[in-house]
């Protein structure tokens, strides 16, 4: 047995145990991407470096055997910086998107590609569930939103963007027709007052209620909807508007109409509720009277947390600045709910974590064809019955299949993404050179190979070799230009006759994935 210390904790391991495994026994997790359990080490990714406390040298923990008397540090500043540096180098040549450009550009950060795929599969029920993770008023927004997402849609490089907005409206309508109501959750006992029942206030109420907090909305008018009420009937039929708002204002959310708030009432709300949310529309003067810091544009907040100059008072929507973009207000309602919920649970007020996203921007001309490989080649559809009525189911399915699947299939499991997120790696840092081209290679074994996402860890090379594939995968070339591919330019199918499933499962990034995988359902 070999005795050593890792992060000052002593441990004994049998000879031949790697540092990585020894640390694992102590419950110390060291990140790694190229390591394949039960396989000889390869030492490629270099995110597993640990520090030898005696020499200050960095050792790849996956490959170096634990030795007698070693004293190792796995998580100090130097180790973390080494991981960040390795990740940034890998990211500098990583051509792929985690989330799709449309989702990144959507102010409410809606998972558009997933919705599209669910619609295409005829699963409207699941699709609306996905939509409602981010958008509380999809039927309304499906008609009035200027759709910044469509400006970001890659499909427009081929012809016209996917009709995302109408698709969202379609699934929302399907749900409204079904009159499905929110299932109630257990109450947390926390109480919030929301001032104003416009898009921001309604969205905040919707999500806060979902988290189990008790919500009371104070609306000065006799109807909920705020500015949305001003929209013309031809664009937004009243029945849709009313149905959607009613579905939010279910029995669990209390709404008090004709309840304008004056200073005294505001003070009272502050004392009676755990938090107050100002969603009054653009009324900076009022806010000033209440003693909140505000500019001529609107209430000043901490941009991370929506917190105003008063501790338990938050502000969202047009109260911050005048805007015609309802989807932004709706998005803020959702974000605020998440922030406040976490505040109630942890007693710590933190902004939302912006998760790492790999991006590579506009497609090159040849890449458009790569993306079109997995989509319907037809033109953008117009709803036969007009925009206000929206798509029929057949139309929606046809339109949804125009989506190019820009988002990564391994969006949740990707180690490169998760570690980049954890260590704060910046993708652009070392991107000095032109990027390589994006390719999508499909095989009939339900596998898609996107070589530009490969980090050259060689796991697939090792697996195919182990299983004695006829062709398998191989390293081709060397140095920076090394790539992984099937020998003799054979197809992915030929390379993975036996190992398709296991290779896709073990790939640490999204370079090799199952075509039909959905990690965010």
């Amino acid at each position, binding site marked *: 047995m070999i005795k050593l210390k890792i992060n000052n904790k002593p441990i004994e391991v049998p000879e031949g145990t790697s540092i990585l495994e020894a640390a694992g026994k102590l419950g110390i997790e060291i990140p790694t991407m190229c390591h394949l359990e039960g396989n000889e080490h390869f030492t490629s990714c270099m995110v597993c470096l640990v520090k030898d406390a005696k020499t200050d040298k960095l050792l790849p923990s996956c490959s170096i055997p634990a030795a007698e008397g070693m004293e190792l540090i796995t998580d100090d500043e130097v180790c973390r910086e080494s991981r960040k540096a390795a990740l940034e180098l890998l990211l500098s040549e990583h051509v792929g998107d985690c989330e799709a450009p449309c989702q990144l550009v959507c102010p409410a950060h809606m998972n558009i590609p997933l919705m599209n795929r669910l619609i295409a599969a005829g699963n409207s029920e699941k699709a609306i569930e996905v939509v409602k993770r981010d958008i509380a008023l999809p039927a309304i927004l499906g008609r009035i939103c200027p759709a910044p997402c469509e400006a970001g849609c890659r499909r427009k490089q081929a012809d016209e963007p996917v009709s995302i907005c109408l698709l969202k409206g379609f699934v929302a309508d399907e749900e409204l027709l079904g009159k499905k109501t929110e299932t109630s959750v257990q109450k947390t006992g926390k109480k919030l007052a929301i001032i104003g029942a416009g898009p921001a206030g309604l969205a905040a109420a919707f999500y806060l209620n979902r988290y189990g907090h008790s919500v009371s909305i104070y609306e000065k008018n006799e109807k909920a909807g705020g500015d949305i009420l001003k929209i013309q009937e031809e664009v937004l039929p009243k029945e849709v508007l009313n149905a959607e708002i009613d579905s939010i204002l279910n029995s669990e959310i209390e709404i008090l109409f004709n309840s304008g708030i004056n200073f005294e009432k505001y003070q009272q709300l502050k004392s009676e509720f755990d938090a107050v949310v100002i969603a009054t529309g653009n009324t900076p003067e009022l806010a000033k009277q209440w003693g909140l810091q505000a500019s001529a544009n609107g209430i000043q907040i901490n941009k991370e947390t929506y917190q105003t100059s008063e501790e338990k008072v938050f502000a969202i929507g047009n109260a911050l600045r005048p805007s015609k973009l309802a989807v932004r207000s709706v998005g803020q309602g959702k974000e605020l709910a998440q922030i406040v919920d976490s505040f109630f649970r942890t007693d710590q007020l933190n902004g939302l974590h912006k998760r790492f996203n790999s991006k590579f921007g506009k497609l090159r001309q040849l890449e458009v064809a790569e993306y079109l490989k997995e989509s319907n080649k037809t033109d953008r559809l117009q709803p036969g019955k007009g925009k206000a009525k929206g798509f029929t189911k057949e139309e929606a399915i046809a339109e949804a299949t125009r989506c190019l699947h820009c988002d990564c299939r391994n969006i949740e499991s990707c180690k490169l993404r998760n570690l980049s997120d954890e260590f704060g790696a910046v993708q652009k840092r070392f991107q000095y050179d032109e990027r390589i081209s994006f390719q999508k290679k499909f095989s009939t074994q339900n596998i898609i190979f996107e070589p530009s996402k490969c980090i050259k860890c060689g796991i697939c090379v090792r697996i195919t*070799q182990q299983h004695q594939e006829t062709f398998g995968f*191989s390293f081709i070339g060397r140095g920076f*230009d090394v790539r992984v591919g099937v020998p003799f330019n054979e197809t992915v199918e030929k390379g993975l006759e036996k190992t398709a499933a296991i290779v896709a499962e073990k790939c640490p990034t999204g370079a090799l994935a199952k075509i039909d995988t959905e990690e965010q359902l």
Partner: protein
Amino acid sequence: MTEENKNIILLTDEIIAEKGNTKKALIPILQAIQDEFNYLPEESLRRLADITAITPADITGVASFYHQFRMQPVGEHMIKICIGTACHVKGAMQVYDAFKRHFNFKDGNITSEDGKYTLDKVSCLGCCTLAPVVQIDDVTYGHVTTDMIETVIHDFESQAGKTGKKKAFRKKGESEFQGEIRIGLGSCCVASGSDDVKKEIEESVVGTGINVQLKHVGCVGMCHQVPLVEVIDENKQSKLYAKVKPQEVRQIIDTHFKPDSLFKRVTNKAYKLLEKVQTDEVWEPVERYSIDVRDEMVSNFLDRQIPIATEHRGIINPLDIEEYKRNDGFQALAEALKLEDEQIIQKVKESGLRGRGGAGFLTGMKWELTKNEAGDKRYLICNGDEGDPGAFMDRMLLESYPYRVIEGMLIAAKAVQADEGYFYIRAEYPLAVNRIRQALINCREQNFLGDNILGFGFSFDIQIYEGAGAFVCGEETALIASIEGNRGFPRVRPPFPAKKGLWGQPTLINNTETFSMVPYIFKEGENQFNQIGTNDSKGTKVFSLAGKVNRGGLIEVPMGITIREIVEEIGGGVQNGKKFKAVQVGGPSGGCIPAELYDTPIDYQSLIEVGAMMGSGGLVVLDETDCMVDIARYFLSFTQDESCGKCTFCRVGTKRMLDILNRITEGTGTKKDLEELKYLADWTQKGSLCNLGKSAPNPIITTLKYFYEEYEAHIEGCCPAGKCAGLIEYSINDECIGCTKCAQKCPVDAIKFEPHKKHEINTELCIKCDACRQVCPVDAVIVR
């Protein structure tokens, strides 16, 4: 199946039948396939996969890893432009560009339209003293300049198909022995034309009745004077002739030797007179080239040197085993065979010998570790994969002293009880491979190799493994992977090869030079050896001295000698009266030592202290016209190209550092780039898997440390040395005499042809090829 494919399959089958059908034989098989077809046809590789156990993944992985292998057919003749360090600082890239212009190559195309020539860069041909060097097939041209392209190609084409006249050299003993002519046949000598000189000598003495012995000797070391001819006349007087041209041979012979009859003498003279009249070639009397060993220049070059690895240089014929034996060869082996293994190791330990491959691990210790490991079998490898651009020591040792290296290996094999040995030799060194191959045959004939060597009950044999073009295979674990038929990926140590090496067995790997030091220790004693050198660096070190130095060549000096002594005394100072700026030590793993550290002693520790390392021993002298940022960029482009691609820091880190250096030398760099360069250099050093990656940033780190202001100048838009094309401009000053030479040479018509007028350069058109400056007789072309 087409006729052509049938033929490919047939020939492939033959190759496999000869080389074997296991993975171990993969690289030799691929080498043979390429020899046959001039590239690796896919049909052939598929056949290989079909009929052997070698998988397509192995074949593709290996074939695409090594630079030697080509997947596409190339032209009939290969033009290889050496871009080693010495060639680089002497303008190799401009020569490369000139060839590209000559053939009008565009968009990465490198084969001429008629399929006759393919242009390629090669990392180092090891002829550094003749820089810049160009090789067309097996003909080497030295000192090539941008305006010589047509001449070179013309010369090559006029040579093609021309076979030398039949050798008619007389054997010793036919008549009274009159003397000896020694001619160097190291690669430098051959490249400088010693083969032609040799032929001329053979032809000159035919029919004259002169009986001299023409002797091939290995590298003399004075590579700056090649081809060298040494004449020993009947009175044993020696005379050395430098830079001998074939047409001068007759006169040299005439000076020393008399034909055996008056008639022959007369006809000989008459013929010579006739020849002189008929050719309009004017040449200086050969005396000008005659140098005497007692001359100060020569004695300076030789006096500071101590030949251990290069003992008997210029005297013995590399392949003459009898002569080696007459000069105490194999005596060390005889001594060692009498000793116990432990005693051998003890002696080597006490000698203080450290590995000459770069890192400087104690040799005796390495032997002991290997010996003490349990294993079914033990291997011994001689690392002759000298890949550093600007280094040619191993090549010289293998070419010139094959028996000494073999003797060293035999002693080591005995000590660690190895019974199988390998010579791993770089593919770019065909002459070394041939010499070693012959030397091994000769050794077997005399039972220096084989079973029960010299009756001592010890058996050992050596085979040659030719590298296939990968610098990283100089790293011992990568070298082992390569012999095993894999991609040359290094792996983490421990375990060290001493414990788990070739085929998983204990393996001793030493550098060529290390082995060549060993016989001395047994012949002269460990104490004799450890009295040479410094406290922690014992013995001598062989260096290849090249670059901007007057007398370049192969030198062997005691450890502890200073850089100044090497450059000024042995090397005769910087060329053309320029100022010494720095010396690059240790190639891509080493660093640049500046003028203020001129007195740094050369030993393992001192070099590390100044940020360089011994490396394998290349010394490239740089003068004031060399741009240090360009030098750093040059080395990074080398290591980036040679990175195996296994670990992130080396694979991507070297690329990103190169990107930054490209920006800086192109004039688009920023202050922020300098910070990022430091950051990447630091992490690539700390985080890389093997020593190639760990040491790759050294050229950057040392130049940042000693020449930071040059980096800053580039960022401000100026290259102080006038090297970086993106930052300089060519112009012509008032000295211009209107001779039009520059206008005639300009490949892009940027200079208008106006006789007797001051010329001007159109900077819009100028491609900065430097041709005008080189040709200007009055130095009127200015670079700013």
